[in-house]
């Protein structure tokens, strides 16, 4: 029985953090049609910058986290202005090949970020200090308050995101752009502004999930591709471009991983997720909640 509760509670916490981690990736694909293969690098970037300011400049935790998130936003805009926008505007790249060019560019961008992080901060994994100390006993197992706080923050931010997208004007602009870019442009909304907003939100989301992930599992530049892969699996399972789908898929992937780790062996953790992915891609390529 203890095992059951442990899987249930740990799976829930892991899945909630994964869910937040996949949100930004899902949003940017759904709205701009871009598979950002540097996603993992953004998570790690925010985490390492935050860790650096907290442990070297002895900044208080919230200030350090804010700087980490700021770094992620800054790089998010850099990606947009240096790579995504020029490729989108380029007349020399055929229209139907733009997607693969952007994909390759984000892949290269990821290598650049990882290489620089490795060079400047070293490759030892960093851990963000716990937000609160202490632990509590529930259902025969002990859970640290820190883990509970992390899961709560994740869910809170996902809730806020949901509210912002479905209930506010700028959010509706994003939603509309994800359905039809031309339609949005005809309604007199400047697409450039939509993209600026989108990449800003993306940077914030990636930054927050990066620091939360590092507070839970730690982070190192080497882990970036693995994190991108995780976000990838979640988003595909949920359906490319569907935020609700990504949310539920995180729990499926999170629990599958936790189950495997507890019942078989931690080293097999990613395998069931991949198998689910292959089956889903073959039987229902649009994913569980996919729109297309």
């Amino acid at each position: 029985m203890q095992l059951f509760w442990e899987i249930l509670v740990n799976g829930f916490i892991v899945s909630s953090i994964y869910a937040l981690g996949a949100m930004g990736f899902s949003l940017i694909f759904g709205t701009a049609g871009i598979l950002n293969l540097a996603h993992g690098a953004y998570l790690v970037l925010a985490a390492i910058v935050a860790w650096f300011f907290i442990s070297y400049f002895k900044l208080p935790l919230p200030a350090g986290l804010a700087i980490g998130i700021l770094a992620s936003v800054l790089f998010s805009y850099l990606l947009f202005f240096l790579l995504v926008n020029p490729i989108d505007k380029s007349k020399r790249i055929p229209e139907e090949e733009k997607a693969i060019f952007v994909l390759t560019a984000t892949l290269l961008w990821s290598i650049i970020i990882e290489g620089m992080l490795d060079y400047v901060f070293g490759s030892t994994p960093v851990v963000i200090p716990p937000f609160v100390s202490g632990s509590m006993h529930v259902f025969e197992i002990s859970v640290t308050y820190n883990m509970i706080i992390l899961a709560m923050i994740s869910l809170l931010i996902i809730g806020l995101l949901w509210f912002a997208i479905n209930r506010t004007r700028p959010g509706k602009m994003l939603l509309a752009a994800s359905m039809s870019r031309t339609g949005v442009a005809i309604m007199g909304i400047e697409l450039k502004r939509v993209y600026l907003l989108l990449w800003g939100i993306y940077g914030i989301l990636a930054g927050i999930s990066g620091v939360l992930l590092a507070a839970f599992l730690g982070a190192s530049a080497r882990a970036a591709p693995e994190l991108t892969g995780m976000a990838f699996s979640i988003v595909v399972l949920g359906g490319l471009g569907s935020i609700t789908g990504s949310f539920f898929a995180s729990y499926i992937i999170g629990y599958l991983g936790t189950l495997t780790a507890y019942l078989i062996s931690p080293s097999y953790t990613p395998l069931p997720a991949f198998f689910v992915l292959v089956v889903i891609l073959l039987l229902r390529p649009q994913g569980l909640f996919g729109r297309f």
Partner: protein
Amino acid sequence: MRFSPSSRNLLTFCTLLLITLVCLPWFLSLYIAGMLTIALYFSVFTMSWDLLFGYSGEVNFGPTFLIGIGAYAAALLNVNAGLPVFACVLLGTLTAVLAGLLLVAPALRLRGPYFCLITLVSVLVLQEFITIFAQYTGGEIGMTLPGVLSASGMVNYYLALALVCVSAGVFLGITSSPVGLILQAGAQDPVAAESLGFNIVKYKVLAFSLSAFFSGLSGAMLVFYMGTASVSIVVSVSVILQIIIAAIIGGRRTIVGPILGSLFIIITGQWLQYLGQLDYAAVAILALIILLFFPDGIAGIILRRH
């Protein structure tokens, strides 16, 4: 705007490239010739990828699925069954072709990003399997092979060059024939191509088996040249990245471009090694610049029609 080099330009260029590659090892140290040998095997990977991407329109994000299966099948047969090198390479190549046929089914069903994903996942699964069956495959470290292609560096270099010539010949022959046009038509509008009476499935199977054949063959020969088979040489995601980057900066849809791209990426990689940890980032920055400002790649710059 489509880039298609005029055939005379291309012929002159290929001849020049071939003469350079044949003569090069006479002037170079053994170390550099060894590096070029790896670059040559690597360029076969890249050309095979270009056949699928440039002509058949399939964005294969898992070229190392085919390469890795060919290489590992050959290596496992050599280590565990003790078969001679020649038989291992042959059987490894056949296994790779079977793996290539396995990819045709999703390729026919899935479009765009979905096919990218499934190919990428296939590599991750292969990597997991290699780790799980570590007692046979050597896991992360890889395995040392008892068999070698040849002890002489020169023989190895010319073997690799011969493979490059054969595969480039086959690829150029296929792509400049009507088959190449049908492949491109199938990539751009499968429905229209089928309604003209072409059996797209047949041509896709051909493209995938050719790509898998040469990927597997080159992978198997590469591990026997290196003397070890490991994930970091023939399977890992960084190998995939190098292949895709090499094809794009060399010039996609040209077959010759990928050879240049591969030589470029391996040689600059070596030159930039003194940068230490920054070497990958430096290659990536170079590749990004080429990608943004010269989307037709090195071959596009050299073979541009005036």
